């Protein structure tokens, strides 16, 4: 993620008041998280597992904290049980941003069927769980998408996911 995309994301967070960042470090979003950690506006928590992060963020969000869980699409697969409960079962307003590993343009080093699995399973999983998502792949629309995805969680009273790819990520 380059400096422009990082700056746009942080601007959007501040615009809607997101100041609590939950993350499980992964390479494509590392620079974003690093910049956030250096900014005193934000409080960050590193979680030990994806299911934990999704559920923790769900509790904080329902309680009124303005937060986001930043992870990778593999994290959505690992945390699918937690997603199923935060989504279809309880409908918790929860904002997740995830790098779209396995999308076209991912030349980050993961190869073969591992890469292909992310691509083939990620979006169908979200669709099966009926969790609304958007794909952010152009910088000119990134800030608006971050803002609107977060606001969608409040308006829907349900989770929403923003997948990062294209020129936003690679």
């Amino acid at each position, binding site marked *: 993620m380059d400096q422009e995309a990082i700056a746009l994301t942080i601007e959007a967070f501040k615009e809607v008041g997101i100041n609590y960042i939950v993350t499980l470090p992964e390479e494509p979003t590392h620079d974003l998280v690093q910049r956030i950690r250096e900014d005193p506006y934000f409080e960050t928590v590193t979680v*030990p597992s994806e299911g934990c992060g999704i*559920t923790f963020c769900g*509790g904080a969000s*329902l*309680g009124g904290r303005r937060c986001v869980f930043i992870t990778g699409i593999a994290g959505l697969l690992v945390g699918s049980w937690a997603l199923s409960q935060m989504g279809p079962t309880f409908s918790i307003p929860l904002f997740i941003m995830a790098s779209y590993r396995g999308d076209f343009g991912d030349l980050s080093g993961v190869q073969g069927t591992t890469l292909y699995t992310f691509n083939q399973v990620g979006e169908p999983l979200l669709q099966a769980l009926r969790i609304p998502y958007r794909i952010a792949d152009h910088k000119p629309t990134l800030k608006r998408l971050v803002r609107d995805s977060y*606001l969608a969680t409040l308006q829907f009273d349900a989770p929403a996911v923003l997948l990062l790819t294209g020129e936003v990520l690679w």
Partner: protein
Amino acid sequence: MKRYDCLELLASHVDEEMITVTCLTSTFNMWRALRKGGPSFYNLNLGLCLPFAVGLSVAFPARKVIALDADGSLMIDASSLILTAQVNPANLVALVFDNQSYARMGETATAGGTDLEAMARGAGIKHTATVRTLEEFRAVVPEALQSAGPSFFVAKVEPGERFKNPTPPPTARGMKDTFVQAITRLPDYQGVRYGTPLPGVPQGE
């Protein structure tokens, strides 16, 4: 020691200002019968009870949040112990009812050598205890509700305890809506209340 007796004792110390979260065990039916009032989120199952409670504890840092978890649920995602230690919420009390069994379907690992309190301590939670009698429970748990935590207790309870709540259970969404209505009335709720302007959105947009 019986789970019901522990919960009855706990209910006498939990006021309406506190927030409780339960997993999907007999605790659910017992607690909704015993708790007189106040926000309760029920039925977070298979590893989700404790991390959800930790999330609520950071949303309400000046209010006690009590997680009523169980051995089988906690073991599914024991990483939540690490989360609890990392976030270190002073207002959290985690109580794990350990009946050493999966209902009537056999023993959990805690019937053998697995020690959940030792795992919690190993994860970095400082205030921990295992209680085996109601007297021990009475000695440590009420005090934790008045002290800085996080606190983590394992309550060894009898397996096979049944409880029938005559009140039909709420639906998941109905329960959640009731919970949201309760917490949004709290003066320290910092979220967006329904019908109020969204953050960062100019009026009229």
